[in-house]
């Protein structure tokens, strides 16, 4: 894994159990478009910024297909809450809780994320 980042800008950091894991420069995030990041234990995370600059992070694996693609979905707002729609079969997931909006029995992990 290569971690080549500039040090001047704000970083997107993800809360793992004990500490904050640096994902990328904040400036890499395009509002409304996710990026995928690899965690030290092999899990994948999809990180998003909305148009107001708020950050979100959920597991990158689409539970309906198994493919690691949620970072490539389109985001939006549903009844005031941010969501991403899976690019494969279009199920939507709440970006804050990871809850699937189209199937209440399905939820993906949501991570705490901040810019610092």
């Amino acid at each position, binding site marked *: 894994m290569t*971690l080549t980042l500039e040090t001047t800008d704000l970083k997107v950091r993800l809360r793992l159990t004990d500490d904050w894991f640096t994902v*990328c420069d904040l400036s890499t995030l395009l509002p*409304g478009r996710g990026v*995928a990041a690899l965690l030290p234990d092999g899990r994948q995370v999809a990180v998003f910024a909305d148009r107001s600059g708020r950050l979100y992070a959920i597991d990158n694996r689409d539970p309906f297909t*198994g493919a690691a*693609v949620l970072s490539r979905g389109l985001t*939006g*707002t549903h009844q005031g809450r941010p969501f991403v729609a899976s690019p494969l079969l279009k199920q939507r997931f709440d970006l804050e809780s990871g809850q699937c909006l189209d199937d*209440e*029995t399905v939820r993906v992990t949501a991570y705490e994320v901040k810019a610092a």
Partner: protein
Amino acid sequence: MSTDTPTIVLVGHGMVGQRFLEALAERGLTATHRVVVLCEEPRPAYDRVQLTSYFSGKTPEDLSMTDLAFIEAHGIELHVGDPAETVDRAAREVTARSGLVVGYDVLVLATGSYPFVPPVPNKDAEGCFVYRTIEDLLAIEEYARRSTTGAVVGGGLLGLEAAGALKGLGLNTHIVEFAPRLMPVQVDEGGGAALLRTIEDMGLSVHTGVGTQEIVTDDAGAVTGMKLSDGSELATDLVVFSAGVRPRDQLARACGLDVGERGGVAVDEQCRTVTDPHVFAIGECALAADGRVYGLVAPGYEQAATVAATIAEDEAAFTGADLSTKLKLLGVDVASFGDAHGTAGDCLDVVYSDSRAGLYKKLVIGRDGTLLGGILVGDAEAYGTLRAFTGSVPPVAPESLVLPAGAGAPAQLGPSALPDDAVVCSCHNVTKGTIRAAVTDHRCTTVPEVKKCTKAGTGCGSCVKVLGQLVNAELEASGVEVDKGLCACFSQTREELYEIVLALRVTSYRELLDRHGRETARGGDGCEVCKPAVGSIIASLAPTIGAGTHVLDGEQAALQDTNDHFLANLQKNGSYSVVPRIPGGEIAPEKLIVIGEIARDFNLYTKITGGQRIDMFGARVEQLPLIWARLVDAGFESGHAYGKSLRTVKSCVGQTWCRYGVQDSVRMAIDLELRYRGLRSPHKLKSAVSGCQRECAEAQSKDFGVIATANGWNLYVGGNGGATPRHADLLAQDLSDAELVRLIDRFLMFYIRTADRLERTSVWLDRIPGGLDHVRDVVVHDSLGICDELEALMAAHVSHYRDEWAEAIGDPEKLARFVSFVNAPDTPDPVVAFVPERDQIKPDLPLLNIGLRPADDILEGTATR
């Protein structure tokens, strides 16, 4: 036995049992009677017809049909998980498993049926299931996690549902049917053949004409396979028996009630048992007065209503029922209605069959022209209307009812042609008049409201489409506005948004949303519906309104669906496919070799597409720029296979080589493909040019198709293949090259301007007021005076076209997005892996379920990592 309040005991709380309770309540009988329900399953009545939808994400709660408030409000004593065990008819008492004893004045048996399991050795082995209850589904789902292959015994209606469920669970699925065809009860030989082809195309293996002889198990007693009657053995981890159902009449037998020879509690026309006037039987456990056991929900509902009426001392009788069914099995429409097999004497068949498209439609017509019944496979659009016309002489010729739209005289026989007494929902026996009244008298404005008000559409759901059309027609007739907005963010249609973007030169989605979106959506992030739609409008108009001309420019990048975002087609395991443009399907050997070399070097799976070009599958995100650098270098450009835009213009070799050709179809196809490449539109656009009337390029199945004549070109529009084939309509004849191009320019721009999101030209042409004649008036005769504008818009597109991929690989900012991981751009996504098949690769799908497997098992899908 009760003394003052008479008691009704219902044994069984399935769909029919619940309907019976509702019928009691409607007649006020719950107020005058004590009602006790004994239910075996751990949950109250649920929608067994929609059982399979559990696998597409419905929860058991979604499937529930029981409103507990209803049960409570009517004082019904519902005991779930407590089946009736004995009936003492002399004492008029029922004893439940819990020991509960209830006296009755009226006993209603609605015990349903049980799945028939053929008596083959090891039928109870671990891994053998039936398909009847939610509990069965949960068990199958659990077991399938450890399985790779599943087999369904029985290719009837439920068998195909079960097979669909197994396939959905990721199993290699086999169907074993004893009869020589699938769905032997509902469809005839021709329908069975159409069904078979479509189902095999989906990757299911079908074995017809063979029986199951034995289930093979391992030492631990778990299923490993099955022996078939033709001597072969099928390896499978899981078996689902779905070989029909039998009435559950044990309780009735045990208390001495008469049952039929082949099972079923014998009842008269009031559904009263022939043995005991205090006992009734309804639904799948009853042998009706006409000597049949009905396995469908609609007749059961009618029986439930009959018993409630009889208890209320009203006149009612159940004398038999229609066995019409419409289902979507594995995505294939299958319907049969009325006398589907033509058993009446002296009847005639009208058959339309297109094996290529998996279509089969048969109508059974009486001598006097009465529609007696029919079978529809592959396209059951007309089911609702046809069923309602059954028993009468339809107002148009029968053949026009089965021909596909566009062939011969189109039959515009929508629901508006139905009389008010036509039954639209046969599950709940709701007429068109009742539905209209729900809108006009009860002020229902949506389909869900009408469903709640009339119960129409709440049974099998096959009439919901007709319901929607009726509701909209009725609303429009009474002047009520229907919300035709694009989505929850915009109240405008796509066409209206197009006009706003063009007139106000809006180049930003956010600006459009904040100024023209619905109040509640302004300032938000939009949604996955309007973002790509607006992105497409802006891209179509980019040069004219002054927006960036690359779909990945600035904010536009965040509007694109994932295919457009990575300029490639996302496949099921998260890899992408790559399609370079091959205009007209003409390619020089040197370029073919380049494609071959690239596919070989990156170990891509290659396949020739229907659009005369080559698709390369299995590329990882981070490989896309490397692959395209080589393609661009060799002179290729984007084929836009990922976009809602022009795909290909197919051609035959034409006059140059062919003895019959009358024009140079290849040159025209190349010219057209290069002219319209990159044009963003509401949906994909396909085209073809044939060099003579023999039509080898299949131009009449395209959005715009061109056929050569001795005098020039004929232009056809609105054709489509796919699920709803439509032959294109002739727009203009004997055009010169310049006239042809001008008309196509206008036609495409008029379509882009007025179509709905994801509306192909075929649907658009049928939807817009005035249809083909109106389009011809506008684009040929310039009736709206907009042709100059349409041509100018197209000219701007043509002159501003640049290859998206050539620009992307020259732009570091855009390229930076083509990485697997933002923090590890060189590490490939570990779940994108491939396994060998027929000398190429295919996605390693089990990997998606388990997450990771040891590295040495994986066939690496990449040479340049």
